[in-house]
Every structure is written in structure tokens, then in C-alpha cells.
């Protein structure tokens, strides 16, 4: 199973990726849109669907695999990256997605997220960020804003939120992006780019939970607020605003917003190795700053599987395909019976053992 293109067979369509299970999210939930874009995007990868696996944790978002007509695991809370890692190492030819929520990925699963990213295992992590625990009915999450009143914070949360993109960047992720449930085209393109990236890719999707945290992203999802979005594009300036009149500029080593012309434009380059600008962009919080979406970072590094497979190959080149008898004999040996002398000749020795 080395070639992953479907030679000669018809291209798959969105419908091929819908399973026979009823979709059970609340009516109006942002998860529907993400599911739709994923199903639309997948045919673009031109992979046989039996080579695709969705692994999720626990949460509303993590029901996702049930609705995909591919292989899938609905695992346990926070641990999807670990299952995906083992799966991918066991079978590097698979295309593996990790579907997770803000609680699943950043609360209980924060460490696994960091480690799958830093190892650059070739999986695509999609984090549905609704800034709330949906499935357990509305407690604040690690991305909930300070002061958020929820079931478990009746007097308001006293925690600082985590920024998923900053965390992913600091975890050495080689592909980091953000999109929005309702920005269907952008979302589809972003998912495609992430899926095509060789190595660990991370996509935060701003998602509305209309039951427990309705409007968490209204400042960028409502029609009248679109100008608060900054679409990152490689090789383009960092412009935004109703008429694209505003841009970002470097100040000290921070960013600031100025209005201005084309000279002195800060040209965005997601492949810049240090990731410093990507990080600075990830720090921008509304309303002081616009909300950037798009690909923040996209660099090439060897994947973990490649490293593993090449060690296997090199070892086999050097030592040959492992033979059990050689393994057993890789230590001082002695003989009982007969002349008590271990045959010097390897073949004779093996014969003696195997009779």
C-alpha cells in the first residue's frame, strides 16, 4: 500500500464520506459546518477512503468520526493524539486526522497535543474551539475568557485563557493554521492545506456552540463584523479592515496596527524558520487587534515516521533482516552434552540447535 492515488477509479465525492449514522449534534451547532467542509475537502486528497482514519477524543466535537465513512476511533478524553501516533507508526501509509475540542485538546489532552506536534508525526489535528465544554453541558474551558460565567464558574472564571496557536507554535508544530466554522470556503482550503502538509499539522477552527456559549465568535462571524478578520496569505501584506485600509507593522518586536500605504508593508511568510512573526500574530487579541485566520506557519521538517522507517531500513541494511536465532545467540553461550564444545561455525551451531 505505498501508492495512495486511486488509479483508474472514479473520483470520490462528498457523499462517499458520509456514514450511515444520524448526526447528533444540536441543531445550529457549528460542528455541522466543519463536518460538511471536511467531507467536501477529502475527495481533493485523492486517497482511497480505506486509507483514511479519523481519531477523536471525547466531547461533542469528538463524535465526528462516527459521521465519516472512513475508518475511525472515538477514543477517550484527551488521548486521541496518542492513538493517532501509534496508528501512524504502525501504518505510515494512512492519512490520519485527529478531531478534538478545546477541552479535549488543551485541558486533559494538552500534553499529548504538544508531543504529537513536536514529534512532527504526520497527522492533521483539527481543534474545534467553542470556548466551552459542550458535552458535559457548559463548564468553562481553557480557552474561555476570564470572567466567563458558566455552570462551574458562577462568579466568573478566574483563569487566563490559553491561546491554542501560541501553544502549537511553541510545541514546534510545522503547520499551524486557524479558520472558522462559518467561513466555509476558507475552512475547506485550510483543511486541505493542512491535510496535504507532510508532518504534524494543526488547525484551530473557531466554532459556535449555540447551546452553551452562543456568540463566542460573533465579533468575527457576524456579517457586520467580518472586517475584524485578517486573512493571512503567504507573500501578501497583513491588511484588514472594511476597505482593507489597515495593516500590521512591527514595533519593537511587537506588532501594532497602523493605517497606511503600500510601502513599508510587512509581507507575510509562513515558512520563515523562527516562527517569531507567526507567534506575534498568534498573540493578537480582539478588540485591540484583528483576528488573523489562515496559515500561520508552514515549514518542512523530517517526520517522525520517516525517521523511524529509515532507522529500520538502515538497521536491516547493516544487520540484515533480523533472524530469531541470531537474537537468541547474541550473548555468551555454552553447550551442555556431547563434547561440551560450542561449534565455532555459525551454520553448524544453528544446525545443532535446530537439529
Amino acid at each position, binding site marked *: 500500500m505505498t501508492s495512495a492515488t486511486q488509479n483508474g477509479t472514479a473520483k470520490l465525492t462528498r457523499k462517499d464520506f458520509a456514514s450511515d449514522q444520524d448526526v447528533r449534534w444540536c441543531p445550529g451547532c457549528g460542528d455541522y459546518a466543519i463536518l460538511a467542509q471536511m467531507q467536501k475537502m477529502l475527495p481533493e486528497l485523492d486517497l482511497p477512503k480505506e486509507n483514511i482514519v479519523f481519531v477523536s477524543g471525547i466531547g461533542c466535537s469528538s463524535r465526528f468520526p462516527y459521521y465519516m465513512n472512513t475508518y475511525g476511533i472515538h477514543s*477517550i478524553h484527551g488521548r486521541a493524539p496518542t492513538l493517532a501516533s501509534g496508528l501512524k*507508526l504502525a501504518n505510515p501509509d494512512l492519512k490520519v486526522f485527529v478531531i478534538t475540542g478545546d477541552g479535549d485538546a488543551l485541558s486533559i489532552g494538552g500534553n499529548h497535543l504538544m*508531543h504529537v506536534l513536536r514529534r512532527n508525526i504526520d497527522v492533521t489535528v483539527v481543534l474545534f474551539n467553542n470556548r466551552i465544554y459542550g458535552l458535559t453541558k457548559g463548564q468553562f474551558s481553557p480557552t474561555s475568557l476570564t470572567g466567563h460565567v458558566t455552570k462551574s464558574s458562577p462568579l466568573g472564571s478566574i483563569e487566563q485563557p490559553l491561546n491554542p496557536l501560541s501553544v502549537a507554535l511553541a510545541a514546534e508544530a510545522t503547520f499551524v493554521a486557524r479558520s472558522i466554522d462559518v467561513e466555509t470556503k476558507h475552512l475547506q482550503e485550510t483543511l486541505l492545506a493542512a491535510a496535504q502538509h507532510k508532518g504534524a499539522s494543526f488547525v484551530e477552527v473557531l466554532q459556535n456552540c449555540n447551546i452553551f456559549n452562543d456568540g463566542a465568535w460573533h465579533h468575527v462571524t457576524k456579517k457586520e463584523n467580518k472586517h475584524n478578520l485578517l486573512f493571512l496569505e503567504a507573500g501578501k501584506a497583513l491588511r484588514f479592515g472594511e476597505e482593507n485600509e489597515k495593516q500590521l507593522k512591527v514595533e519593537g518586536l511587537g506588532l501594532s496596527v497602523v493605517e497606511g500605504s503600500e510601502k513599508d508593508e510587512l509581507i507575510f511568510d509562513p515558512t520563515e524558520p523562527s516562527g517569531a512573526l507567526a507567534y506575534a500574530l498568534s498573540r493578537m487579541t480582539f478588540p485591540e487587534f484583528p483576528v488573523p485566520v489562515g496559515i500561520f506557519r508552514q515549514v518542512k521538517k523530517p517526520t517522525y515516521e520517516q525517521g523511524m522507517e529509515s532507522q529500520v531500513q538502515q538497521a536491516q541494511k547493516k544487520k540484515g533482516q533480523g533472524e530469531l536465532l541470531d537474537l537468541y545467540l547474541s550473548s555468551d553461550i555454552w553447550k551442555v552434552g556431547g563434547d561440551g564444545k560450542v561449534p565455532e561455525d555459525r551454520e553448524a551451531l544453528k544446525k545443532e540447535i535446530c537439529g
Partner: protein
Amino acid sequence: MTTGTVTEEFKELDSVVVRFSGDSGDGMQLTGTQFTNASAIAGNDISTFPDFPAEIRAPAGTLAGVSGFQVNLSSHEIFTPGDSTDVLVAMNPAALAANLPDLKDDCILIVNEDAFSRANLKKAGFAENPLEDGSLERFRVFSIGLTNLNRLALEDIEGLTQKEIDRTKNFFALGLICWMYDRPAEPTLEWINKKFGKSPQLVEANTRALKAGLHFGETTETFQLRFRIKAAKLKDGIYRKITGNEALAMGLVTAGKLADKPIFYGSYPITPASDILHNLAALRHFGVRTFQAEDEIAAMGATVGAAFGGAFAVTASSGPGVALKSEALNLGLALELPMVLIDVQRGGPSTGLPTKTEQSDLLMALFGRNGEAPLPVLAACSPGDCFNTAIEAFRFAVRASCPVMLLSDGYLGNSSEPWQIPDPSKMEPIKVEHPTQVEGEEFLPYARDPETGGRPWAIPGTKGLEHRVGGLGKAPLTGNVSYRPEHHQQMIQDRQAKIDKLTDIIPDQTVRGPESGDLLVMGWGSTYGAIRAAVSRCQAEGYSVASTQLRYICPLPKNLEELMGRYKKVLIPEMNCGQLAFYLRGKLGVEVESLQQVTGRPFKIETIQEAIRELIGKGA
């Protein structure tokens, strides 16, 4: 030390227990290992017991820093490293102090007197110098200035620091002991060449130290006697020495080969299980993928993922780590995928005694999961048996499509015994079938094999079998999420049934000794050697007693209850507070006697013997 006839200058012995003991920096593990190798090659049966401190290097000279290596050499079959010591090499006062309670009365004591400084004596808790105050009278003490003798022997080697020179004094001691027991120097010399090949000075230094020791024995008149232990009558064959952890690694790789499956090993380092990782990491050419995870949960998660992907997936840990794996292991159980979890048990609870042995994770292995979560539990009973158990674990896992728990312990993991090298081509293959699409037939991921109760292992990449699995309640056959009461009950029964069906391939439990009688001594795991030896000694004393070791703890062999019923009493020695005893009572409703020891140390044969005598009554 049973003394025999004197041949030439040699006294012949049946067996001897030698213990090397010194500071953690003194290289005692190495010395012991080399001596063991030489003895093994000389044909003795051997059994070793390394016993090291929890600290990497505790402060030099303290009791906490004492590192010991005990080896039992014998001309007949032995099963333990020995209850007490015939020969002690003590490199410093702390080593002497630490071992005093275990010495036989006429023990030969070889002591490095150069290390018996005021300061060291104090650190070891001696008010007076025991070499001088007569307190060692009952032993045969040989007090030797090892450090200085060794320095003299090496003084003209250029480019070595004093520290480097002193670090070779363990080889001086080794040389001396090899001389005493007529052991060949060649294996050690070979080893030195291999190990230090890159540094000619070090080769020279260690070689000289070893020879100096040999010659010291030869030339001085300190030692009046030398000993010989005849080769043991082991079964004909080619042998090597094997520790439990080595055997597990080799067993896993063998299981993979027998099934034509690559091994995926996901693990997080922890004493005393880490060596399995170290061993496997060096086997990339066998297609072994080792994954050092960020923690035990990740290791377990990756193992479940790899199992879904079609690998022979394994993880291993010790107590605290196994506890952490519980939730993800339970997912493996719910997904019904084959995989193996190894627990190399150590002293608990909590961090406990990382470098000491114990059998106290049994109930956790059986019950440490939420919900009704039965899993097969197997226990290896000797270093070499770890090999077979690893293979068997995968056989069970594949058959019942579920995770299998394999119990070892620190004692098994680190101690060694001779192992007859088997012929891989004679081993029974492990049959693994992955379904493929059958045109016109709906694929049912939770359809059960009527014989085994297992479910199909359909792996990603297989066209037409796309399906989703998860940890939620399921409907039979389809495996679709279901909260229906009857589905839940059904799935719980089905999972139990497939475990129970493993009894179909579990051999009847057998005993060593009379088929019925006064007492059956039943053990599990690493107590095997001590129990077997104790029972055979008691049999020799005329007691009506048999021994048996449980390898299959869940499910239990079919005939076990009947077997136990054939004896008036059943005694279960365990390195815990009676966990197997409790389990058997709860499971079978049988009466058992429990012999418990939780000291971080293996049983002495004598302790079990005593218990047997007591139970049957002195006048057997």
C-alpha cells in the same frame, strides 16, 4: 555450602552462593555478571539476584549506596539465587554491614581492608572496626588491601588517573574469586577487549587487574583452599544466560515473527521495566518500532492505536505506570483489539521501592479498571519463562481479541538463569486473520467467532471494511453506539464469555509431587523457584506435599478447583498481603492458607519450608 571430597588442592562443592557487594560506583553488577558468565560457561546451573540502590549514586560509603549481586552456582538444578551467602566480597564497610544478616556461619569473607577507614566505618554505622574487634569470628575472614594491591599492579600504565585505576579494582576481586573457584578468565578477557577496545590503556588496566587478582590467589598463601563445582546435568543443548527482561523482549519479537507481524512497543521508562525498552530499541532490524512516549497514558494510547493499525502492539511499565494506563487499557478492552500490557512489578504502594521486587499488583491487574472489565492475566514464573509467557500473551490476545496483562516482577526482570536456546522453526505459529471485503455482505465489526468469542480484526487500508469503534456502549454485531439496556448486558456477557473460552486452550494445572496429600503449595510468578526448592526439600524430609505454579490467573485452569480439593490444605506464599489467596477464595470459594511477605525481597526457601512444616505438623 555443602562440602564434598577434596581433589588435588580443590574441594568439590555441590553449590555455592557468592555475593559481590560494594558501593554503587564499584562495579559490582559487572563483576557479578562476569563471574556468572564464566560459571555458566563452565556448565553450572546458575541463578542470580542483582540488588541495587534506588539512587544513581548514593553518597560513597553509605549503606544507601550499597550495590550487591548474588549468584548461586550449582552442579544440580537450582531455582533461586540462594537463601544465604557462602562467600561475600565486601568492597567497603557499608557493604559488609549491609550483608551481615545474610551470611552463613562459616562464610568466606573477602574484605577490601583499604576501604576500612574511620570515615567509612562511621558511614556504615560501625563504632569499632569489625576487622579488629573480633565480631567477625564466626566467619572465615580474608582481609586484603585490594585498592593498594591493584594500584601497584597498574602503576606503570601511562595516561590513567588514580580514579581510573581504582575503578578497575573490581576486576582484581573478580580475578581472585575466579582463581578460588577455578573459573576460566577467557570470557572476561574477551569482554574487556570488546568493551574497552577503543582505549588500549583501559584494556591493559582491566586485564592487568583481573590477572593480578588471579595471580594473587595463586601466589600468596592467604588462601588454603580452592573449590570446584561440577557442571550441572542440564538437558543437552546450547545455553545462554537470560534475565526476565531480556526474555520478554525476545519473546515479544518471537511472537511477532510467529505471526508475521511487526512489533510496536510503546513505553515510558520506569524501573524495573525500562530494560525491555532498551533491549527492543536495539532491534530495528527485526522491524521493531519502539516509541518512547511522553507518559504511560500516551504509551498505552499509542499501543491501542497501533493495535487498530494491525501491529502486534505491546506496552510495559511498573506499578505507578500501570495504574496510569488503566483508563486507556480499558479503551483497548472496549475496542476489543489484541495487545499486551506487561507489568514488571516493584515495591508499592505509590512510588514505593522502585528497585525492589513485589507481587502486589495482582488485584490491580485483575480489577483496576472502571466497569465490568475482565481481561486475561498471565504470570511468568522464571526469567526463562518470561519468553514463553510473552508468546502466549499474544496468542491469547489474538484469540480473544483483547488486551492481555502479563505479570512479571523486579526479581524476574533482573535476575538470570541458564536458558536453552530453542529452535524457532519448531514453535507453533500464531494465526492472525484480517478480514477482507465480501461482496454483498455487510461487514459486522462486532460479529463474534463462535469458537473463540473474538471479533474480526479489520485494519485500516482494507477496502470496504471502513468502520468506527469507540469506548461508548455498543450494539452487538454492528458495534454502533447503543445505550439500550439489553445491548449493554449482552456486550458485557460477550466480553466475559470470550475470556472464559480461553480455558479451552489452557492446559490443566499439574503438580510436582504427589497427586493428593496433606498439602499443596501453590504460587504464581517469581516465587516459583523458592516454592519448588522448599517443597522438594520437604518431600525429601518425608512430608506429603506437592507444589504447583499458576501461570493462568485469569481465566483459571478448568481443573484448578478439583486439583486443590485433593489436598487437605493449600498454602499460597506471596510477596504481598495474600492477593492470590483472596482471589481464589472469592472466585472458587475454596479455603486456602496464605503466607505473606512484603519486604521488597524474594522469599527464602527456608521461610517456605518452615511454613510447610508448621502447616503439616512437625511430625510428618
